[in-house]
């Protein structure tokens, strides 16, 4: 009897559902909700002026969040160790989609990064984030204690394929996020320190060469360099960032009040509901709101690192660390560009920016982390 009880108790304790992380999900949900409100604040006015339903973007975002949650739950239902096997298929599919998007995609603002499927757009680059994480984590898990130069080259090749395709779109921001993720996984997978140093130096050299050799378009260089001399050019490349920084700075400690930001109402910040969503938070909710958002992301990062530490196997740990790196890179780059300390490279703020692919992938990442955590005893 006692054995039965203890067994039951043990099974109950080790039951995955018992080890969900409410803080993780709660933070993500709060960010998504806040993001939707901010999208409403930044778009309702101009939609009204155009006699379009002021909830147009809100409704689409809610649909994306619902899909994201479904995907998240779906991902958690499958044991993440099975994902390891499935990841190669996802990787292949992503690379294929990236090829297709280059050929048939819709070009928006200079980048060919998405297709239209009905009324919705799909951005394969976003999906590359999660699948590359899985594939890289899987590869590194297999060769965990033997990441010599040759293995490293293979790992880099795995990364280079989708990143190269994304570079061709071109979507610099996504590549930067992928680089951060890949580097972190390689770091955590035991790659030799000297190799990592060489890798860092290589990345820097590549960046310099890319700018010098004209691989990057002028507008990309302008974006990257405009943040350090903003003010010099208030109508061109620096305009976005000037307006964004002004909006954030206007917020003050407690903000102009919800729906009260003049920069937001006046639509002075381009792309405000997508890449510059943080400026709405900054202007209307002030430092308090901005710190709250950063705090929620910090909670997610904290819970993700905890999941990585508790992970039952290296694969789970590497997945979590990859996701962690992606979130940190995206938040730092996105909030950094909204506050003028990072160059403008069009990447969304996870959970908050308007855009289905980003929201769905962000929730999928949470699903992956939750998956690793909840199965740490099984």
């Amino acid at each position: 009897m006692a054995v039965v009880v203890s067994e039951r108790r043990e099974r109950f304790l080790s039951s995955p559902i018992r080890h969900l992380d409410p803080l993780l999900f709660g933070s993500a949900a709060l960010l998504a909700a806040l993001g939707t409100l901010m999208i409403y604040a930044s778009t309702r006015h101009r939609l009204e002026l155009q006699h379009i339903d002021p909830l147009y973007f809100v409704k689409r975002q809610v649909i994306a969040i619902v899909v994201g949650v479904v995907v998240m739950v779906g991902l958690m239902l499958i044991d993440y160790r099975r994902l390891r096997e499935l990841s190669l298929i996802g990787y292949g599919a992503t690379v294929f989609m990236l090829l297709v998007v280059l050929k048939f995609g819709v070009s928006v603002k200079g980048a060919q990064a998405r297709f239209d499927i009905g009324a919705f757009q799909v951005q394969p680059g976003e999906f590359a984030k999660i699948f590359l994480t899985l594939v890289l984590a899987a590869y590194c898990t297999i060769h965990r204690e033997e990441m010599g130069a040759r293995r490293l080259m293979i790992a880099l090749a795995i990364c280079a394929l989708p990143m190269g395709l994304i570079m061709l779109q071109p979507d610099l921001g996504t590549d930067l996020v992928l680089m951060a993720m890949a580097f972190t996984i390689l770091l955590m997978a035991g790659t030799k320190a000297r190799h990592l140093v060489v890798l860092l130096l290589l990345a820097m050299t590549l960046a310099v060469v890319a700018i010098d050799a004209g691989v990057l378009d002028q507008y990309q260089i302008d974006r990257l360099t405009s943040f350090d001399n903003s003010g010099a050019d208030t109508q061109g490349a620096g305009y976005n960032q000037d307006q964004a920084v002004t909006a954030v700075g206007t917020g003050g400690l407690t903000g102009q009040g919800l729906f009260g930001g003049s920069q937001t109402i006046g639509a002075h910040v381009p792309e405000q509901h997508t890449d510059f969503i943080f400026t709405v938070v900054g202007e209307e909710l002030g430092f308090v709101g901005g710190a709250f958002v950063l705090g929620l992301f910090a909670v997610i990062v904290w819970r993700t690192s905890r999941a990585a530490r508790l992970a039952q196997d290296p694969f789970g740990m590497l997945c979590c660390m990859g996701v962690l790196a992606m979130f940190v890179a995206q938040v730092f780059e996105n909030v950094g560009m909204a506050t003028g300390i990072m160059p403008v490279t069009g990447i969304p703020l996870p959970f908050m920016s308007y855009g289905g692919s980003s929201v769905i992938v962000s929730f999928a990442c949470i699903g992956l982390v939750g998956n690793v955590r909840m199965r740490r005893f099984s």
Partner: protein
Amino acid sequence: MSETRIRSSIVGVVVLALFSALFARLWYLQVAATDQFQAAAVSNSVREIVEPPLRGRILDAQGRVLVDNQVENQITVSRTLTPKQLHQVIVRLSPLLGTPIAKLNANLSDPRNSPFTAFRVADGVDESALVYIAEHRSDFPGVRAEAAPVRRYVNGSVAFHELGYLGEINSTELKAQVDPNQYRLGDEIGKSGVELTYESDLRGRPGVTKIEVDSSGRVIRRTATKPAQPGHDVRLTLDLDVQKTAESALQQGIDSARTVQDIAYKKQGFRKLNAPAGAVVVLDVATGSVVALASNPTFDANQFVHGIPLATWNWLGAKENNLPLVDRAVSGAYAPGSTFKLVTAEAGLNAGLITPTKTVNDPGQYSYPTDPKHPFLGEGANGHVALARALTVSSDAYFYSIGGDLFFRYHHQQPFGDELQKVAREFGFGAQTGIALPTESVGRVPDAAWKQKIHAANPVAFPYPDWLPGDNIQSAVGQGDVLVTPIQMASAYATLANGGTRFQPRIADEVLDASGKKLRDIAPITMGTVVIQARDTILAGLRGVVTDPKGTAAAAFAGLPAGLAAGKTGTAQAAPKQNTSWFVGLTPADNPKYVVLAMVEEGGYGAQTAAPIARAVIEQLNQLPVGPVVNVSPPRGN
């Protein structure tokens, strides 16, 4: 495991550093430096629309409108359009306005367009065209069709010099403004006359509407609207009827003078009077109020509305057109001739050189005792004359002798040596009267100090540093180096007439708001008092000028009812020019209420050209039929 822990610590440190950087940046932007961004956000979205105020009107003494504003439909095109857009707009406007494209393009490039305001392409546009443009805004980008007030000078050129005109504010005027919101580039400001001197009353305050716009320039909300405050009306002391008569009399007098011979021309042959210009001043002696102020030639201020064409401006500045913009009444300085004898009489009385009854023999000339070989000539012998008679017949010898005797006192450092100059200054000569009009001349009262000064400045042109007998003797009859303005002379006779109070000539008496409510009085200002001796004797002498058969202006005033007029003629040598013709009239003759001064440059004798002009104005002031102004030729006496 410890290896993994080290590595995850590295990741942790990096993550912590990045988040710290974001928090720090956010704190800096939103707490430490938020003020500068709030200012930037305001300038980002708030636009100020300034609505110019409706300018106040200028009224005459009876409240008749002299200057007001009329509404004019005009079409302007923004300067921000590209040349291509501009062309499209012009092509569309042309059939709508029924104006050829070439004409509209010419209007666009009209140099009178202010660079700070939109291009004015058409004036006086039909209401229907305005409506059409308003309804088809998208076809006419940058086009504004609006009813705008423009200045209107109701009586054309009448009182041009006193009323003045408007022009675009220049950078000097803009810098001089204390209140930066009162004017902006492109605004109009008074450039002359009352429009200039009463600018602060007439201007009003511009209205400011702050509108918040979004990044595409659409209006989000209007905030803090400050309505424009219309300018105040200024009521002048000027009487439109008297002014009109003064101007037409002056014009007729000048026209008439140009037909007659210059009898002072003693050289070979015959020449006519040039009479290029003149002035009339009418003062109310009790207050110093200006009832009329005319200067000829004159100009229609309506031509300044919308900016004056360059050719017209150049024409106005050319000497051969006699400079119509110059106000002879206050800016012109002339030798006063015999009209100055009033001053000499008072100086002589003060010094005890003459009495009202003491007679002086006038043999037609006068010599200073020490220099009998160089006599000063008069117009003819008048025998023994006392003060009144001396004025009536304008005896030069009588007044020469006062000048000579005063010089004797000066030369021997006796009292009253500078009495002539002292009295002249008491009457206001040699200084601005303070009339509220720009560019007033000071004239000149020459004395020993002045002579020293000009000699020191230019010893070649002025070889004598000392004040000589001739200087004082010539000054005594308003010749030599004495220079006066018509307004100074009129003011001096007004001082005589009212018994010795010298007023600042006053051109406006009230400021009213747009509803006609009085806001403030402009009270007469007393500049000083003059002790007038023998006023009755002098007035009797001046009555004789127009009534006595031997009075210098008797011919010009023949037929005027008795007791209406008195006055003094003046014929001032102005070589190489022809003589300046002066007449200072008083009406009525006993206890005069008005001074009527007429002056015509190169008009010959005072009695021939100026006196008939003054007579017409006196007729007007006394509600008599105003006769035609005809030159009295040949005249008699000076």
